[in-house]
């Protein structure tokens, strides 16, 4: 045993190694990405690690490996689970052979997400066990145990950490890494693996029959536990349990739910020892609903009675507030501090030299009256440039564009999608748009990397997750194969040419594809590419702010004139924007 200061996702990855995991697949998504990143960067790793093109693909590959008898994990963020929901629901019927863990990281408060959905609902829906760790140590221990639970019940097991588990840090006591001695062998059994109606009806019955034993086992393992101390009680789960422990009074009973499904009889036994019970959990009222079913005459407080909100994340001071509101005393009180006076916001911005800024600036210039459906990626920050009118989920830029075209919207519709997102679920939308005769312009922002989640390679990069060279996919060939006749590739850093291509697309009808290709500036920096920097000649600058309005973080206004800081990465786009030629590449003497 050795104690390290670890990120939650590192602790989870180490738990997988201690369980001798054979295969890890995933699609990047904050806050889940560092689990695969930790495994793929580990030079001593004995397991196979893969970035898949989307979550459904990752899920199905991991499921197949489990059917071959291997221990597998697939990782994703909560909204990625929507993409993998189709195989999820039926994999509970077919069951598994080697331990199969589905890591779905939830993001209460939507720190970096488009919604706040609760993965526990999916586990309940699919009727599979779900682990919900309350500390990093527990996350590490639980993920290790999840593989054996999966094997014991021949079911996929969901592991659901939240942002404050994945992206918090703590001292974690780690065990030994174990190396697998399993070999893949698929044993044919159509009654298990072919879900024709005659088979699936029986499989569904078997799934339901497994439930009581799972509930008992989770209590036996101590993941669901309680301590009776007084007449009032709190039931909590996940990271919220650690906040409750920090503020709860010493005479208040506490039940912690670390795993689902909950044994109703066991929970009823706890509740009925009390007069009043508060349920504190993040997002959906999963525990609360079960508590209400078994509460008898005991008062249950929580979301449904208005003390705990359905949205956002918990924190020590919020939990203290809910305990007070429900009439359950807390041992810690917090005064609400006075917030500081308004300061100019420092929102996340596209990097200096990022090609997305140039591409979107050009789009706005050429399509002044355009509608701009967009997608999930760094380029969503283009909302600051007025070129992101819609974002809903991965791959939904091209389909929203073609839907508007179908609806008969007369303005130009210009959508944007990144390389990784295009390969994730964009291709189907493009095929559909061409097939059904949409009139749209599709700008594929191809920076050769999955940037926003931390620079994971994808099929455009030419490298696998573990750094093996692989042929980069041709986005041009995919678009042409889909039937698009206008497919042009151009770098937006070459602003004039890029705008000319946009104008040409504007003049044509049908599905026009422009591949805006320029490597991510962060990748360039890491590859030691140095393009120097640009400077403003102060004697020529007229202070017109044309470059300022471009929104590059390297350009400041000093004393009424433009000034370029050391953040400049030398893309040179601002020099094309300056009406008086005041900006040029810096020449070192």
């Amino acid at each position, binding site marked *: 045993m050795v104690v390290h200061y670890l990120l939650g996702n590192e602790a989870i990855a180490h738990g997988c190694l201690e369980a001798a995991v054979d295969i890890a697949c995933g699609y990047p998504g904050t806050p889940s990405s560092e689990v695969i990143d930790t495994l793929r960067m580990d030079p001593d790793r004995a397991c196979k690690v893969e970035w898949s093109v989307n979550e459904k693909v990752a899920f199905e590959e991991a499921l197949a490996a489990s059917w071959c008898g291997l221990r597998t994990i697939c990782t994703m963020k909560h909204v990625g689970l929507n993409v993998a929901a189709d195989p999820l629901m039926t994999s509970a019927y077919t069951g598994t052979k080697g331990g199969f863990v589905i890591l779905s990281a939830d993001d209460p408060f939507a*720190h970096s997400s488009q919604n706040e959905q609760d993965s526990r609902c999916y586990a309940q829906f699919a009727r599979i066990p779900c682990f919900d760790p309350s500390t990093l140590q527990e996350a590490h221990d639980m993920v290790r145990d999840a593989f054996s639970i999966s094997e014991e019940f021949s079911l996929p097991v969901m592991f659901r950490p939240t942002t404050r588990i994945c992206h918090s840090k703590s001292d974690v006591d780690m065990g030994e890494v174990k190396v697998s001695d399993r070999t893949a062998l698929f044993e044919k059994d159509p009654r298990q693996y072919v879900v024709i109606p005659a088979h699936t009806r029986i499989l569904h019955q078997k799934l339901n029959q497994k439930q009581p034993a799972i509930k008992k086992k989770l209590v036996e393992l101590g993941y669901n536990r309680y301590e009776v101390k007084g007449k009032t009680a709190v039931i909590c789960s996940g990271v919220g349990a650690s906040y409750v422990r*920090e503020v709860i009074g010493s005479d208040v009973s506490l039940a912690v739910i670390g795993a689902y499904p909950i044994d109703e009889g066991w929970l009823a036994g706890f509740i009925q020892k009390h007069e009043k019970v508060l349920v504190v959990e993040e997002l959906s009222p999963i525990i609360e609903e079960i508590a209400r079913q078994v509460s008898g005459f005991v008062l249950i407080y929580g979301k449904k009675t208005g003390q705990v909100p359905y949205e956002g994340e918990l924190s020590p001071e919020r939990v203290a507030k809910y305990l007070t509101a429900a009439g359950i005393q807390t041992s810690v009180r917090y005064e609400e501090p006075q917030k500081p*006076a308004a300061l*100019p916001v420092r929102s996340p911005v596209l990097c200096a030299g990022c090609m997305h800024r140039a591409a979107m600036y050009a789009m706005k210039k050429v399509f002044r009256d355009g509608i701009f459906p967009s997608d999930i990626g760094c380029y969503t920050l283009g909302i600051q440039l007025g070129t992101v009118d819609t974002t809903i989920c991965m791959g939904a830029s091209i389909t929203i564009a073609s839907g508007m075209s179908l609806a008969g919207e007369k303005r130009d519709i210009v959508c944007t999608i990144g390389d990784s997102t295009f390969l994730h679920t964009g291709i189907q939308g493009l095929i559909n748009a061409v097939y059904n005769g949409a009139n749209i312009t599709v700008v594929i922002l191809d920076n050769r990397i999955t940037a926003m989640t*931390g620079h994971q390679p994808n099929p455009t990069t030419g490298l696998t997750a573990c750094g093996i060279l692989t042929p980069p996919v041709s986005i041009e060939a995919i678009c042409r194969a889909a039937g698009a006749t206008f497919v042009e590739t151009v770098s937006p850093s070459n602003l004039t040419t890029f705008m000319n291509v946009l104008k040409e697309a504007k003049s044509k009808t049908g599905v026009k594809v422009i591949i805006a290709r320029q490597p991510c500036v962060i990748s360039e920096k890491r590859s030691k590419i140095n393009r120097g920097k640009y400077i403003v000649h102060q004697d020529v600058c007229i202070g017109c702010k044309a470059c300022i309005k471009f929104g590059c973080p390297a350009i400041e206004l000093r004393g009424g004139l433009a000034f370029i800081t050391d953040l400049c990465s030398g893309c040179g786009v601002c020099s094309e924007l300056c009406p008086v030629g005041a900006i040029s590449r810096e020449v070192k003497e």
Partner: protein
Amino acid sequence: MSFDVMIVGIGGQGTILTSNILGKACVIEGIPVRGAETHGMAQRGGSVESQIRIGQQYGPLIAPGTADLLLSFDLLEAARAVHWLKPDGKIYTSQEFVVPTSVFMQDYPSPEEPMLLEMLGSRPYKVVDCRRIAEEAGNVLTQNIVLLGAASPDIPLKKESLLEAIRRTVPQKTVDMNLKAFDMGIDAGKSE
């Protein structure tokens, strides 16, 4: 009760590295520790914060108005984060600040140093010229270590533990430079 530290700055200034040093120093001393950080989209040049709770066995989040110490790599971010501190919490901040792009894009009045210092209020604060000291130590990138050094007498961890944690955290070839930056930071923290 834990000793709670807020570390704030702008994405890329080393808030995570600094919090890692504190976390590893806790492990060296066998003290429980919890930390929370900003990852993902918010890192792109936005305001970032790391919370570190020295001696904490429960959750990673600090309640607003209860932090013991604020370290800030940007004076404007210090002003933005001051409400995290308890009434007598202490502030160590870099003297510099980056004007947010929003000021130029939306023609906001640009914040000035005296105004930001005033916003720190009645709490004890120390402004450190991190850039100058880091340059003297040999690399402008050691500014975060300078500030950590300055604040270190107020952190309930041994100096040796912090030095060892720095050795374990920074790139191998920059160890000496960072240790020098740390010591120069201690001196800067003491000076009036």
